[in-house]
């Protein structure tokens, strides 16, 4: 267990190194957030929706932008190692490969998104009502949303490991990876808030693993999921974590048996 924890800590520290990249990334994300908010504002004001407040949409956009790095960031090192044959060293380590990389990717996603989320949420909080992020529905809602983010993180890391598992045996991973990322961006609510999808679709989409990553926490935060619905929502997250981790473990175990070490 200690080995996995130190893999986690190493990766965490590494993510802290690139502070310059963080500033650039945050400014970019703020820009995209402003553009999206402007579009949704104009749409909403032209045709106000019943049962949905403008501030809920803008809050959704800002939370998605703030935790962008949690959804869409990957660990290219393993892919490089497979291509160059460096994977042989990884197999010599007295740790379980899946757990090792799961710890690394979780640290990267957690630290990367915390570093970015703090300044972005501060900025969004300073924007006027109807542009920025509004306060959580209640204090318990905030705490539940925080729990949801942590469960979502475990879920997104498990999904990332499955993507890696799919691509492990092909040397050119860009195609598969791009497809997986797109599914994630669309069904996690990054391209368009899931709350704006047609209501009939939402019932199915919110059950998919992608919705567990961030959508659930945002809905808990804005109060779209009432406190009484929270246990069920968190339970769905937990179920998906178990499913995705077991699937990933099986996939990696099978891959490892057939893995070809490239080059010399």
């Amino acid at each position, binding site marked *: 267990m200690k080995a996995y924890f130190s893999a986690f800590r190493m990766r965490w520290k590494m993510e802290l190194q690139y502070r310059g*990249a963080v500033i*650039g*990334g945050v*400014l*970019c994300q703020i*820009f*995209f957030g*402003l*553009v999206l908010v*402007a*579009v949704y504002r*104009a*749409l*909403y004001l*032209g*045709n106000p*929706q019943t049962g949905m407040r403008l501030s809920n949409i803008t809050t959704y956009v800002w939370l998605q932008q703030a935790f962008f790095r949690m959804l869409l960031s990957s660990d290219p090192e393993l892919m490089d190692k497979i291509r160059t044959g460096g994977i042989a060293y990884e197999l010599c380590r007295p740790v379980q490969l899946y757990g090792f990389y799961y710890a690394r990717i979780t640290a990267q996603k957690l630290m990367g998104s915390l570093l970015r989320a703090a300044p972005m949420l501060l900025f969004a909080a300073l924007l006027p009502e109807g542009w920025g992020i509004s306060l959580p529905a209640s204090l318990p809602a905030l705490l539940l949303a925080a729990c949801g983010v942590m469960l979502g993180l475990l879920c997104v890391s498990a999904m990332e490991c499955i993507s890696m598992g799919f691509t492990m045996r092909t040397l*050119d991973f*860009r*195609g*598969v990876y*791009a*497809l997986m990322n*797109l*599914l994630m*961006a*669309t069904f996690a609510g990054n*391209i*368009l808030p899931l709350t*704006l*999808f*047609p209501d009939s679709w939402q019932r199915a989409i919110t059950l998919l693993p992608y919705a567990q990553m961030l959508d659930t926490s945002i809905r808990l935060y804005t109060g779209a999921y009432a406190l009484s619905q929270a246990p069920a929502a968190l339970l769905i997250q937990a179920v998906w974590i178990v499913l995705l981790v077991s699937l990933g473990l099986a996939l990696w175990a099978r891959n490892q048996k057939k893995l070809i070490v490239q080059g010399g």
Partner: protein
Amino acid sequence: MDTVKFYLRSMKMQLKCQLQYPASFLLQTLAQLVMEGGEMLAVILIVDRFDHLNQWTAGDLYFFFGIMSVTFYLTECFGRGVTGSFPSMVRSGQLDTLLLRPRGVLTQVICWAIDPRRIACIAVGTAALVMGSRMAAVQWTFLKALALIEAMAMGGILILGLFLIEGIFTIRSVKSVELVNALTYGGRSACEYPIDVYPRPLRVLFTVIAPFALTLQCPAAYILGKPLYGWPDWAAFVTPLSGLVSFSALYLLFQHAMRHYRSTGS
């Protein structure tokens, strides 16, 4: 003439290279299709929920989306050298070899790469354009077709120019600057929707600094018969020229930067 032959030959070579790995090529093209399809799906779902955006109907929105998408990805397809490879050429010192050859640097950079996978995005954009013009019941005339072609050509040149900015920064500081993406990719995302939905600072940004509104949206609005800001019809033919102006200005800056180019060595 010689340069054109040179260009066509390198394009043929590039295409051959890309098709060497057909499975990977097909998968990546499919990924592009899903990507742009996802963006389009977002517009469709928005229309489904909100019906219209200010005075713009569903058809208008698809048309705006389509014109931006086709123009942007045509540029990325044929200008891949500028939009993708150039910064890494500077960082690795590969640019030095180009300086030795008896052709302009920019010509060679454009010949450096082609990205045929973008054909999938262009197809989605074209579908959006056709759908939009059908739904908005556009009466096509010779002048409108001309406006569309001019808009796309000028828009493409503008986008190429904006990507040069990243090149200029790379020459100056070797590191590439992420923030430049706000103008290029940000401009694409923002100007998929009509410019008049944005607050003034964003409008100024995409009208004066990166004139997507002038090159693409003014002609698009003319074609749809709802002139942008109520401008007269001839504006749709004059304002796109701003794309050429921006490109020329940035090209001069690029030339200036190239004079101060210092190789990273090795």
